[in-house]
């Protein structure tokens, strides 16, 4: 009788759905799935373009183009992992870059530009964080407000002519500096998130705030840390943006918050946060988006339709990557 309990005995035959479920429930699934989808898409494009897609020029292009969104997506992973949402990162980056460029115009120093941009990025993210933590405003609401306010301020500061930073000076830094800075930040994030208490705590808070509190985790401190990490990333993205374009125009960063969210989710991150969060989702997602854009353009899909394809791909991938609940998903933070 007692043997009935054992899984091997009398176990019903596994259906395909069960097997898929077992695969999907594997702890590494959220990591491996988006990566393998990226590889699949990549291979498809290589076939469709007759190999042209595997060209190194294309690959470096893809990396360069996804760098800014990838940096920000890596950054927001910290925020998302606690179940908070911030879609204002695009505008924060914009304002940071704008002030950085202004600082450059005053001092003509690249170092000052970098320092100012990073500092502003961190300060603005902290401001968002304080509104959430001190006044208990939902992070998504803060972000909606911040998005508009920062956007408007940037627009006033920039004025008619883009704020120029000597693009030749930028070009010097653009190559190696960007790569080194990004890899450094990425590795630090990766380590902090998966190998230190910081990341553990954030995931724990995302999983169950009450439980985290009872386990002696200071929610406010942890979330503040997450915003600092995010701020560094957003500031860095601002620096990359200035270095890439050599100037700051009024529209800088607007709408990028959505791109970042798209990339993060595409990379396998849940907006609920929690146990399955990781930092490289953003990178994978950003690269996937760029691969899609570049690939579709190369095989001759009209530019007006590319967005539609992006939408459908996005829905399919997110759908395949998420657990289908019995009830409908909802979220008080939205």
């Amino acid at each position, binding site marked *: 009788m007692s043997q009935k309990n054992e899984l091997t005995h009398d176990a019903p035959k596994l259906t395909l759905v069960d097997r898929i479920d077992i695969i999907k429930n594997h702890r590494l699934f959220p990591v491996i799935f988006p990566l393998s989808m990226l590889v699949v898409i990549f291979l498809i494009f290589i076939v469709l373009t007759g190999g042209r897609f595997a060209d190194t020029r294309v690959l470096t292009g893809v990396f360069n183009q996804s760098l800014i969104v990838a940096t920000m997506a890596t950054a927001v992973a910290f925020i998302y992992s606690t179940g908070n949402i911030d879609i204002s990162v695009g505008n924060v980056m914009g304002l940071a870059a704008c002030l950085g460029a202004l600082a450059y115009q005053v001092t003509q120093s690249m170092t000052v530009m970098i320092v100012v941009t990073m500092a502003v990025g961190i300060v603005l993210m902290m401001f968002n964080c304080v509104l959430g933590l001190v006044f208990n405003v939902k992070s998504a609401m*803060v972000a*909606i407000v911040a998005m508009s306010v920062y956007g*408007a301020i940037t627009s006033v500061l920039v004025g008619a002519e883009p704020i120029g930073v000597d693009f030749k000076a930028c070009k010097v830094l653009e190559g190696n500096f960007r790569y080194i800075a990004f890899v450094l930040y990425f590795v630090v994030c990766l380590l902090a998130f998966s190998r230190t208490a910081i990341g553990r705590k954030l995931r724990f808070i995302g999983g169950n705030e009450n439980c985290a509190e009872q386990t002696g985790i200071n929610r406010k401190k942890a979330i503040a840390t997450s915003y600092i990490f995010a701020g560094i990333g957003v500031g860095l993205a601002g620096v990359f943006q200035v270095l890439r374009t050599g100037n700051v125009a009024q529209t800088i960063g607007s709408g990028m918050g959505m791109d970042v969210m798209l990339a993060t989710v595409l990379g396998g991150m849940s907006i609920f946060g929690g146990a399955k969060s990781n930092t490289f989702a953003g990178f994978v997602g950003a690269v996937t988006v760029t691969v899609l854009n570049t690939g579709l353009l190369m095989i001759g899909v009209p530019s*007006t339709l590319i*967005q539609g394809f*992006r939408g459908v791909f*996005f*829905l399919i991938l997110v759908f395949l990557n998420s657990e289908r609940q019995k009830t409908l998903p909802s979220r008080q933070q939205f």
Partner: protein
Amino acid sequence: MGNVLSKDRLLGIVKTVAVPAVVWILMELICRTQAGTSVVANSADVRTFFRNMVSTVAFALAISTNLNCGRMDLSLGAQMYVGTIFGGNIALALNLGGVGVLVLAMLIGGLCGLICGIVFVNLRILPMVLGLGMTLLFECICFSINNQQGVILYGKPGVEILSNSTFIIFVVIALVAVAALLFKYSRFGYRYRAIQGSQKLASDAGINIFSNCVFCYLFGGILVACAGVFTTMYSGSLAPVLGMSSNGYVFRNMFPMVLGAWIGSFSHNAQFGVAMGAICVNLLTLAMSKLGLPLNVQNVLVYSLFLLFIIYNTNKRKFAYNRAKRARIALAKQTKAARQPA
């Protein structure tokens, strides 16, 4: 007993109406002193005000439909574009006049909402994420079909009725009444509230949470298309957009929605509250345009007010809490003092 209740209710209604009244007086004062004109100075202002109000009411109601159940539908803006542009053009081609434009747009908008809802209950991914995907898709559809052309309502025969103040008021009242009827008094509304409280329990009790949700999306689509028609009536034409810029409409209408929810809580009628919230925000916009403020400054002002409001709204309980806390500390001290000699 009945008397007390109705007194409470009356007070609630008075409070609900008082908020926009206060805002109006405030704006009037600012405009009179700073710009030398009244906020609503003439019939054109009245019309502008009503037209913007009906758009805001419809859009804010649409957001609240899903948001109250924890679903943020970011694709509402894109649904508005599809509904208005296709519905409008078809109605104009068939020569159906203003009402025809409105009805057809609402039909198509409803269709978009329906599609969105059906996709949602089947995919069951997070509503906000779904909203992103659907926005991309709807914008693309709207843009690619019909050769990137938008809809032009200005100067078209028969659409004047959409600028008629009486008609607009009628639409506003109809929208609020239908929404209130649906969400407050109908079986759908009862089920909706149950689901809002707990999906699982509601579903266990035999309520179909999926069809209810699809209906919410459908209703949202209908409403945004209605908003789109009146927005277009004011701006003359509506051109399709790409790159998720249609999301802006959703964010923009969050303020009246949240404000409306607060105002509505006085009289336990969220839909009526949203209408009042829309009045407040539109008075504010109108006043700022009278003052000739730069658009960026207007933006910063409106959103700062929004922020202040949500800060107040989320923290208002703290005041009561602090009062209760002081009272309790005093009681504790008293008890301690009483114990000491013993």
